[in-house]
């Protein structure tokens, strides 16, 4: 393999390590999978989010 090929492979492996090990596990845990153990708990959580984030007050529009 030529030298440039080895360099590219090295960059690729370092990058994959950073993405899959450092970035994924340290900074990007799956929020719902980490914090809830069953789909029922996850759906209840999102259900409450959908309800709570809504602003049910009617709005006025200038004409």
């Amino acid at each position, binding site marked *: 393999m030529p030298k440039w090929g080895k*360099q590219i492979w090295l*960059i690729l492996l370092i990058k994959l390590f950073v993405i899959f090990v450092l*970035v994924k596990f340290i900074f*990007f845990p799956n*929020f719902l999978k980490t914090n809830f153990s069953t789909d029922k708990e996850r759906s209840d959580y999102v259900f409450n989010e*959908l309800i709570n984030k*809504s602003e*049910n007050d009617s*709005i006025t529009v200038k004409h």
Partner: protein
Amino acid sequence: MTQLLLNIDLSLVDWSRAQFALTAMYHWLFVPLTLGILFIIAIMETIYVKTNDPEWKRITRFWMKLFGINFAIGVATGLILEFEFGTNWSNYSWFVGDIFGAPLAIEGIMAFFMESTFIAIMFFGWNKVSKKFHLTATWLTAIGASLSALWILVANAWMQNPVGMQFNPITARNEMMNFWEVLFSPVAINKFLHTVFSGYTLGALFVIGISSFYLLKKREILLAKRSIIIASVFGMIGILMTIFTGHGSAVQVAKHQPMKLAAMEGLYEGGKEAELMAFAILNPKKTFDNEENPFLIKFGFKGMLSYLIDFNTQTYVAGINDLIHGNPEQNILSVADRKILGDSALNALLDYKKAVENDDEVLANNSLKIIDRNFSHFGYSYVQKPEDIIPHIPLVFYSFHLMVIFGSLFVLIFLIFGWLTIKNKIDNFKYSKLIYILGLLGIPMAYIASESGWIVAEVGRQPWVIQDLMTTSAAVTNISSASVQLTFWIFAFIFTILLIVEISIMSRFVKIGPEKPKNEGGK
């Protein structure tokens, strides 16, 4: 600039959006070149196999090397977007259910098995497998890359026009009812074709740009000329198809995302014979609720916008004010009306949940009917002010027009380069140097046009993460804004490093040039 930064609400939603935009835009720096240059390489290798001319092999291997650098640096950067869905956009990820997951899973399988298998043969198979087998691997890599793009674009198209699903109020998820409706929605078809053909155009402009560099330096003349011929023809097909499918996309935007179309054209007052802007400067004082002129300067074609979306100048095109205040004559509901319907769907969802818990079958059935009837307005429940449904007009407007202007210029570039090369005048033309500089400039212009297209598509659909069903504010996970800021800067750093590495390695290899021909004592 400072004032602009002070006016930005640096909330969790903004940081999450900024992070996603940063990741997506950096990712998109690598993807279109991969999509485009692979087909150019496959065409070059086909000529080599047909003619057995070693010069074509040398040319193929040179462009393959540049592709390899781009692929190695860019591959897997898109995976970070998938991580962000799970961490920053968990409400969205749950709400979309398997509709988003299925295409992404197919994309992963396609990308992994097809691309990685045949890329390995493409890079390491020279002299190890037969010429025809190697050529097949190159073509399959090219086709595989575009097919991988298909699935992610289908998922994106569903967000712009959600079809083929049913909302399940028990799980708070959308469930796919018709895979083919999702796959073959006109929005998905146009989005896929428009995106991949724009990638082919960018790949062709990249090849012309690098070839122009060699012509400017008076070296690698044969490689440059041969590459330009292939790239000009391929690029011309690419840009014409990009324009054609861009028109198809605009028709779909008019149907499903009229606010985006209004933003693209700065159209505040709707009407028949709607004007298409060729060039305009927006009036920064204009808002939806004042009487200011939308433009400081404008040059447009009256009736052309109506004609473009329906081949009829008398077709009504909705303006921003129609979509805010409603227009009964055109059957357009106001934001206030749609919010009432969205609230009704949301309240019915709450009632349904209670009814199921209390075994109240009558209330459950009634609630379900209300949800089904009003679900297409569900997201309006999260809209607090009418103007919340207006995207950032200047960003969408200028990005759209920049993309169109550059796209038109690309037609000219392919024509000039193709014609001069075919006539064998590319290196002895009076204004050759100017043409080479134009060719070189084509590379940054292609990237700017490509990124602008995504800005139009994604900023233009704000505030919706799923059109009319979910806003970005409802989609975001309640996590610390500080953690999103931290990862934003980490990504900004990592991606900038990757970009610098890519540009420096590519520049080095372009300067070195292709392998020397065997009879000159090279490898």
